[in-house]
């Protein structure tokens, strides 16, 4: 009997261990359902969810108690590259990057679990925006254009595939986007006349599923090149459409060799994520000659527009205009500047700005607003549904643009010089484009993105390295902390063990903020 009992016990034990392992595996894995409906204790993709709104439902930290916000922990990367990534949070572990490096850090304590380093000498090391995750695997783009899949649990490489040819002048910085069984990756590269594209990889094998080209192959007569896809897009599961912004045409400042609108550069495009086929495209800067990539987040909002329910897409574009589109068909609902712009003659019937030929770069210089960095850039905006405010870190600025025949028709093909700029958080009423409030950030400008919370907080940073928490209702500062170096990333938030955290970075440091534990509602001391 004893023998039988032991065997039974062993069997039961084995069964239980098996169950645990299974349960554990389920928790470790990030399944499609969790990407569609991210749980509170996760930030499973670059923008937190597919909408790109960067708005969280948490109400623990409020305008009333934010004065008590304090540091939970700091993680020191001990290296020079600035953190520009948005961390992912899955199963209590944060994953964040700088070029060539990934860290997995315990979200509760801030201690390192593993670090992956893959030195590369080729490709621009300008920044790295973060990893994507699916079913326990991470996807990471390197400066020399490799897509690397790693086990999230230990950072071991599973496979290594090519996204593009670094020797042609491509590099990669962006956080891939996982949609169903597709890992979607974009490319960077402004210094050569190259075709921008999106490429979809099989998450399991890394084989290429499809590629969508923004522009015709280099060398096509009178056609543009360019249209780099260097920021993470968004996705509407109901329409099964992927939304992505494309970059500037090349040659960059010389528009003469590429007449016309230069589709699909400086555009917002809607693609079928299963096939890569274009559903529609909207040109945000037809025939751009100022390097104004339209890669800023295509934010997806469902709501009323002038009394009619709409599925909308909103973008504060680098060229200085705020766009609202009907995302079912790409039809324009609103185009309006959100700061100083002087390069367009007006807006055409379809809502495209009409570029002023007299404001193309010239041998003796043209005064242009905004500057080449644009009225905003890669830093993320946020949409607050309660107030209907689209909140963006803007950069009113002026510059001079030059181009002459000697500059040629390859790559940059001109020169431009910023004269002056500043940073300001603008809260834009999405139905009118009117700026409801603005908050000055200082000369030069800020690299900090924006996140809003359902409790009415707007989290961002100023030009000097202060983290700011503003009141979404009026833009007034509620709380701040100097982080030592200007912020170059967009904040995230999540709830763990009933405690709401806000995570951001400055320089090579990652910061986690929360209310003091003894004051967290529902927490035992």
């Amino acid at each position, binding site marked *: 009997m004893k023998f039988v009992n032991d065997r039974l016990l062993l069997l039961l034990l084995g069964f239980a261990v098996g169950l645990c392992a299974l349960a554990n595996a389920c928790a470790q894995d990030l399944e499609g359902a969790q990407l569609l409906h991210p749980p509170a204790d996760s930030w499973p993709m670059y923008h937190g969810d597919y909408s790109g709104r960067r708005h969280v439902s948490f109400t623990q930290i409020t305008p009333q108690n934010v004065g008590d916000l304090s540091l939970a922990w700091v993680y020191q990367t001990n290296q*020079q590259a*600035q953190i520009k990534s948005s961390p992912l949070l899955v199963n209590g572990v944060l994953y964040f990057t700088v*070029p*060539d490096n990934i860290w997995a850090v315990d979200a509760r304590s801030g201690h390192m679990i593993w670090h992956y*380093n*893959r*030195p*590369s*000498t*080729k*490709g*621009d*090391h*300008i920044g790295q925006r973060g990893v994507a995750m699916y079913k326990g695997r991470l996807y990471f783009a390197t*400066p*020399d254009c*490799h897509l690397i899949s790693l086990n999230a649990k230990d950072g071991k490489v599973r496979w*290594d595939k090519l996204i593009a040819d670094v020797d042609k*002048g491509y590099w990669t910085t962006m956080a891939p986007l996982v949609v169903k069984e597709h890992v979607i990756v974009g490319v960077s590269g*402004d*210094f050569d006349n190259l075709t921008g594209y999106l490429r979809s990889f099989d998450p399991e094998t890394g084989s290429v599923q499809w590629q969508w080209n923004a522009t015709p192959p280099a060398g096509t007569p009178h056609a543009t090149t360019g249209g780099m896809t260097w920021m993470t897009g968004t996705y509407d599961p109901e329409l099964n459409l992927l939304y992505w912004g494309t970059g500037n045409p090349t040659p960059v400042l010389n528009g003469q060799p590429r007449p016309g609108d230069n589709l699909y550069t400086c555009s917002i495009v809607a693609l079928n994520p299963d096939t890569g086929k274009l559903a529609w495209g909207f040109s945000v800067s037809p025939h751009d000659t100022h*390097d104004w990539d339209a890669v800023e987040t295509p934010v997806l909002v469902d709501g009323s527009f002038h009394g009619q329910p709409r599925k909308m897409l909103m973008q504060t574009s680098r060229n200085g205009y705020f766009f609202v589109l009907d995302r079912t068909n790409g039809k324009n609902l609103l185009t309006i500047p959100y700061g*100083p712009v*002087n390069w367009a003659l007006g807006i055409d019937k379809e809502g495209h700005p009409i570029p002023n030929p*007299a404001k193309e770069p*010239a*041998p*003796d*210089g*043209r*005064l242009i*607003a905004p500057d*080449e*960095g644009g009225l905003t850039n890669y830093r993320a905006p946020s949409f607050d549904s309660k107030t209907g405010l689209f909140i963006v870190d803007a950069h009113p600025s*002026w510059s*001079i643009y*030059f181009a*002459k025949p*000697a*500059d*040629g028709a390859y*790559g*940059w*093909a*001109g*020169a431009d*010089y*910023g*004269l*002056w700029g500043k940073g300001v958080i603008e809260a834009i009423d999405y139905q009118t484009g009117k700026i409801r409030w603005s908050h*000055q950030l*200082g000369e*030069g400008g800020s690299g900090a993105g924006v996140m809003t919370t359902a409790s009415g907080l707007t989290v961002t940073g*100023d*030009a*000097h390295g*202060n983290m*700011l928490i503003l009141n979404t209702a009026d833009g007034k*500062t509620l709380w*701040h902390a100097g982080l030592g170096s200007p912020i170059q990333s967009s904040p995230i938030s999540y709830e763990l063990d009933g405690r709401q955290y806000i995570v951001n970075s400055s320089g090579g440091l990652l910061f986690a903020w929360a209310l003091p534990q003894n004051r967290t509602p529902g927490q035992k001391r």
Partner: protein
Amino acid sequence: MNNLKGIRAALSIAAAIAAITVASALVTSANAADHEVKQSQVDTPAPKDSGAESYAQHCAICHGDQREGNLPGFPPLLGISHRMPNDKVADLIHTGKGRMPGFPGVKDGELTSLLHFLNTDESAQTAAGVVGGGGVLSKAGAALFQQNCAFCHGRDAMGGETGPDLTQSKLVRKDRTGDEISKVIHEGRPDNKMPPFNFSEQETRSIIAFIREREAEAVAHPGGRRGVSVADLQTGNAAAGKRYFEGAGGCAKCHSPTGDLAGIASRHEGLELEERMLYPRDVKNHVTVTLPSGKKVSGILAYQDEFTVALRDADGLYHAWLTNRVQFKIDEPVEAHVELFPKYTDDDIHNLMAYLQTLR
């Protein structure tokens, strides 16, 4: 190539483990071999290239076949003698550092020839890099430049997103020792948004070598270059510029052609003059702070954000206050330049530029 790097990284880890095992084995065998090695050193000097062999065996896997390094992971060893005395290099070889494993087995004759090898030919190669011969140093610099500098200054150092053309930079042209460039690299230019870079001396030298190479290239091919020459900025009408200066531009409210602007065109020219004209970056603003006691403190505004205001007083002393504790008033006449931006036509700018260029 990239697989190679992976292998290289893996090998260096493997080497570290191997070095530990090998080292302990060597300690025992070295004693026995000690006498023999010394003997051979005296009797038959090591062949001339034994240092190269030792290098190929122990170092090349990470530091490259030509000592060019594999940045950022593995530093170039060319010019190592400029950075480190031989005894330090020897220590490093024996004990390792960071991810570099120690090689305690490399000693006596082998060590001497390896050190000798590390010191050879390096000056010739360095010189080749500086004069633009595509030398090893400038090649290492090119890799660093592509990673860290190219985004702003262009891949060919001739200007790109936001950064100026370095081949036309006055500072680069004047600074023949490289000290000034090195200073800018290490300290950055906060006013112009250039961040500081923490490169080693050797890395800095390699970047400077690359910039020099690009500079030589630009001088050799003046036709096809981008950038803005003085001749480009001569399209305006000086008389119309004078009228704008005295009238619509409102420039005469603060400036005078016989006062602060007298001889301005002799001091500045071309793009630099135009940029200064449109927005002078180095202007110091004055601030007066009124303390709760009613006492007033004045000086040059040293720092200001939403929460802190600071000034330097007449003695150069720095004072700071929380903005919610004091009243303060900043006098910033330079704001008039910002207010002009939306009012200018391009012709106004070109005319004003023509007028300023008459003030010699």
